[in-house]
């Protein structure tokens, strides 16, 4: 099972691929919309990529509650495997 650091690194890769976010910027306190300029359609793409990478599906109602990189890491940690 991946560690928190692995999840953060994996999420950073996804953010770079989907939204052009520099990996160093993908830190837990960052807000997707306010800090990283990730729009709602890109969040949908990120959710799909998270499912592919970690095997964790994010339902739409949960996706709406994921505001920061840290929120995403916690959700993946809680729901994996």
């Amino acid at each position, binding site marked *: 099972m991946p560690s928190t650091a692995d999840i953060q690194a994996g999420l950073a890769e996804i953010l770079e*691929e989907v*939204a*052009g976010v520099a990996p160093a910027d993908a830190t837990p306190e960052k807000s997707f919309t306010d800090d990283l300029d990730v729009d709602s*359609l890109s969040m949908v*793409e990120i959710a*799909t990529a998270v499912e592919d990478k970690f095997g964790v599906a994010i339902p739409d109602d949960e996706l709406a509650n994921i505001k920061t990189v840290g929120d995403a890491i916690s959700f993946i940690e809680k729901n994996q495997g």
Partner: protein
Amino acid sequence: MSTPTADVVVTGLGATTPLGGDVASTWEALLAGRSGVSRITDDWAKEFPAQLVARLSTEPADVLDRVRIRRLDRSQQVAVIAAEEAWRDAAGADSGVDPLRVAVVFGTGIGGAVTLLDQNDILGSKGPKRVSPFTIPMLMPNGPAAAVGLAVGARAGVHAPVSACASGAEAIRWGLDLLRLDRADMVVVGGTEACIHPLPMAGFSAMRAMTTRNDEPERASRPFDKGRDGFVLGEGAAALVLERADAATARGAKIHARLAGAGGTADGYDLVAPHPEGEGAGRAITAAIRDAGLTAADIGHVNAHATSTPIGDTAEAAAIRDAIGEHPLVTATKSQTGHLLGAAGALESVFSILALREQIVPATANLDDPDDDAAVQALDIVRREPRKATFSAALNDSFGFGGHNMALVFTTA
């Protein structure tokens, strides 16, 4: 504040085409007689009657950042590349223009068809949850205009004329109208197309509109020639920045040419076949010349639509002869670029402006044996080598399936 005038000028040019990744390289290749046409080597094309295309010389992924490549359909990527070049050329960002007074008019013939088809494949193979959330913005026909609007920060309005292969020229006409009506102070206009894919190729082939001279790619697009047998599908985009002459002069902008007039008509004849005598085309040409305050005798150069189809070229030749006369130097640059559909009118307007500015008419490639048709025989079509000439007005015409006819008149700055 100065009073707006109807005098509209071109202060920026941009293009990415099968001949080059920008205006300068495209123009240089055109004058050098180079061809942008090649044969498709992919397996899918082997059974196709028409296997020739004119692909971009520069891949958009080599120019735009990865995120824009991911979120924009190829037709939108090239629109943005051309528009950003034109905007830089016009020094739009430093012009001090209020974004609330900047508009965009950008046309496409087919739009995001490749996205539609690719996403349909994903839908079939992986299901609805795997379809990209960017599918709709990537396939909508106003998508290129919207992407250009974001790129230049236009907030006066973003418009997307769709009139098949006349779309690019129609966008320029709308831009002229917006400035004359004082609805904007600067307008980025143009056209785009990128639909090289088996389905559009099969569709155009089924219409018998495409050349099947597969063994001679560079000689296949041959407007006005006896041996012509259809067009070559090309991809790319071209853009112009338009503004009123007084404002351009006041800010010290470089002025490429005046956009002196425009005309548009509909054939009302057939859904796809042109009127055989070019009746509607001729009316558009006459309207554009009148709108420019000129007479037919003033038109020294025509960049013809001439796609290399058997009926289209003769109908247009009749329209040019009847509406203008036998005196203008005519060229058909699709002989080298292929047919860029919705981008054609914009690209050929760029060529018309450069011809006017540099007083040289590019040659029509592959015109070895002009058609016996009386109108083709009557025209002075430049071939073999570009021809230097003295002229102060050039006309570009564009026609589209649906019976759309557009003509634009440019004059020296």
